[in-house]
């Protein structure tokens, strides 16, 4: 199972990329986040929301493992 990760704005700046594919057994958004914080320590300074398949979810949201997961920093539209 492979997650498709998408990074935007200051999150993309912190990760150095706009998207990547990630293999691994992440059972929840919380677990995924912990994995990403190890990989990209700068993420800890950013107040981001997580969208799974384009819907914003809480940290306890269960992942099946094939979703599109986006890390969304504060919005600036308008």
């Amino acid at each position, binding site marked *: 199972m492979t997650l498709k990760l*998408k990074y*935007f*704005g*200051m999150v993309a*700046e912190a990760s150095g990329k706009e998207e990547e594919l990630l293999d691994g057994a992440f059972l929840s958004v919380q677990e995924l986040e912990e994995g990403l914080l190890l990989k990209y320590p700068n993420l800890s300074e950013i107040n981001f929301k997580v*969208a799974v398949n*384009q819907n914003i979810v809480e940290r306890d949201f269960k992942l099946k493992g094939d979703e599109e997961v*986006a890390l*969304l*920093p*504060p*919005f*600036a*539209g*308008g």
Partner: protein
Amino acid sequence: MDKKKIKNSLVDGPITPEKIANSIAHHQVKTNIGGHDIFLGQVRADEIDGKEVKAIDYSAYDEMANKIFDEIREAAFEKFDLTCGHIYHSKGLVKAGELCLFVFTSSKHRAMAFEATRYITEEIKAKAPVFGKEIFDDESHQWKVNQ
């Protein structure tokens, strides 16, 4: 899964006054409309720590942003008695003084258009996954955060 075609509300670069004029002109055949209310967001040349914002480079989670714009528009049609409702938001570079957001609602009576345009604008600021890199005159930048 909802497979309906979602309108693309994202526009490359600034929204031009000509686009706004064309959009207004297209509504002149709808003779049940009595009032339009239009909100335009314009990039400000804010001064921050002695540096001036010369542009905002907008990026978006396109598919989700368009889905959110669509949901906001649908919610506005449910809340208010509207004839038309349109949303356009810039992507890419928009210089200070240029327009980045165009919200346009029309109704038989003015009160509905006033309320709908304001509602849509506030919802976009709160919910649309659009990001803005404020670029200063010395080429440094910071990320804009809606209040």
